[in-house]
């Protein structure tokens, strides 16, 4: 999967590239609008991660050109410092497929990228297995052995996040950012509670390990 990351901040660009390459994506970079257009003219991308504040043009303008002049239909995730609803709406109206407000969690960005790429993938992987647990992304079902486990929507979202990030430590905050739109700072207790419920429902207290003072890890 080829991803173009358009971001003018070198540090952020560096950490994005490192994180996404670790997921085996083919990453190209552009630090301004002109370079992004040039890259898009000479290459095909499955997804574009686009920062709104570029030095030479607005990300909205670039997106407009991508969609209308270049007729490029690659998936686009907008990265913006503006979190307000009207900006999100504007971004989506311009042709973006998703909108992520800064400062975002890299875990969340990766989850969004996965979701978007899965949407257009001809070989949609809708089932993921870890041990004897299988989650079905299409109908949001969880099967353990031969029994279906009833999880709430939030619990399913958390488990899905763990499945995609198995063996990685996820903090409460990263999980909260994934399942709630806002007010993540209030959610650490709630996340603890959800994890406790997931363990109980899966009848496996060790499947999600608590890393004291840091977060949780799904051992697969």
């Amino acid at each position, binding site marked *: 999967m080829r991803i173009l990351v358009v971001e003018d901040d070198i540090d952020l660009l560096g*950490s994005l590239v490192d*994180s996404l390459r670790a997921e085996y994506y083919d990453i190209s970079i552009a630090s301004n609008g002109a370079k992004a257009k040039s890259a898009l003219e000479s290459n095909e991308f499955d997804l574009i991660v686009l920062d709104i504040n570029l030095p030479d043009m607005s990300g909205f303008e670039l997106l407009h050109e991508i969609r209308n002049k270049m007729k490029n239909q690659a998936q686009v995730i907008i990265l913006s*410092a503006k979190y*307000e609803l009207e900006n999100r709406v504007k971004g989506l109206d311009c042709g973006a497929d998703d909108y992520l407000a800064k400062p975002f969690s890299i875990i969340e960005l990766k989850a969004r990228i996965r979701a978007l790429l899965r949407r257009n993938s001809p070989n949609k992987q809708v089932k993921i297995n870890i041990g004897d647990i299988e989650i079905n992304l299409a109908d949001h079902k969880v099967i353990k052995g031969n029994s279906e486990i009833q999880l709430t929507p939030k619990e399913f979202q958390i488990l899905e996040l763990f499945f995609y990030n198995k063996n990685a430590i996820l903090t409460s*905050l990263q999980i909260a950012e994934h399942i709630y739109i*806002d*007010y993540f700072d*209030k959610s650490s207790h709630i996340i*603890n509670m959800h994890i406790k419920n997931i363990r109980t429902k899966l009848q496996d207290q060790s499947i999600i390990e608590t890393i004291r*003072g840091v977060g949780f890890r799904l051992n697969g």
Partner: protein
Amino acid sequence: MKISTKISLFYLLSTIILTLFTSVTIYISFTKDLNDMVDEHLSEDTNQIKYLLDSNISNYAALKHLLFEEYWLSIAKNGQTVYLSDTAKLIPIQSSQIVDKTTLKVETNFINFTGNNDVFFRIHTKKFSDGTCVTLAIAMDDNIRENYKKIAIVTLATLIIISIFVYFLISLLLKPIKNISLTLRKLNEEKFNIGFTKDTDDEIGFLVESINLTFEKLRSHFVYQKNFLTVMSHELKTPLSVIKNHIELAIENEQVPLDVKQRFANDLEQISKLNQLIHRLLLLTRLEEKTVTPNFIKFNLSEFSDELCQFFSDLSESQNKTFKFELASNIYITGDRDLLYRAIFNILDNAIKYSPEASEIRFSLEQSSDSLVTLKVIDSAPAINQNIIKTAENSMFATSAYDKDGIRSGIGMRIIMGILKLHNLQYNIESNSSGNTFSVFIAQASN
């Protein structure tokens, strides 16, 4: 007292004093001249009477026909009154009194007769060398005195009329200042987006020019302040993203020791808190600057509240608190869903955050009437500091208020009030030792 009233009264008082001084001076001078003239006239007539007496010795009866009948006349010889004119007989003044007063010198005086009608006489007595004493007096015309009264009344009336005219004239002149004052009162709502039209080139015009100039500076300052906060907030987001991503990578890295990861996890929470604070400050700025454009839509408040209840039930449970809710179904209202979400979220969040452990928080959505819904949050938290409410209600120029513990900043409350105001929603906060009840009254949307 208004400036116009003060100026009118000052004008009236100073004019009265000036007029009185002038009138008294004129009156005294004029009266003196008149009396001198009368005295001269009486003196001449006294001489004529003496001449007539000398011609018609002791023929006083003749005098009656010869002399002027209007005179008050008394003739005395050797201290005895020998003749009194008819007028003198009518006026009960002892002739001896007059005679006694006479000297060789000419003396003048007034005889004041107080009867049914006041009559003033100017009296002149002359004693001749043969012992004849002639006292002659003439009634003074009181028209002069009457005329003075009339002049005084007319002058006073004129002054009052002029003062009223001056009052209205000054009011008219000061009207621009009144308009400026009224406009300045709107400052809270308009946030310096006001200006005055300079209509005249006088002092008021200059004042208007100066105020406009001051407002321009204040406006620039506010715009700068607002932009500064917005730009800085947005500029902070990218470095925060970088830090956050680096921390996340460090937490993922297996070679990083656990204790360092714990510190990094804590740093992530601090970044999140900082980010939430930036969001709140930006929203507050936009609410107070009235730059928020609400997206009013009709939506199901019952379902919307149910979503919130799920979150806060989880939150309360995780904090060992009880969250009870009772929601009337299918309540539709019109408003900005996102902003109302934030306002109600803040109310509930404060209620849970400040209520003690094992306490109860109740949330209800009840239909008060056919058209009104009451959203009520009852907590067991310490009473909300009234300063916070007052500050939140009068947000402009307000500094953040803190409760006595210094924990509860007014930002959350100001956001709640700002959103409620934006929706023109009435609210009520009752606080006592057992807790707080926050009620919001919302009009139901028509079907």
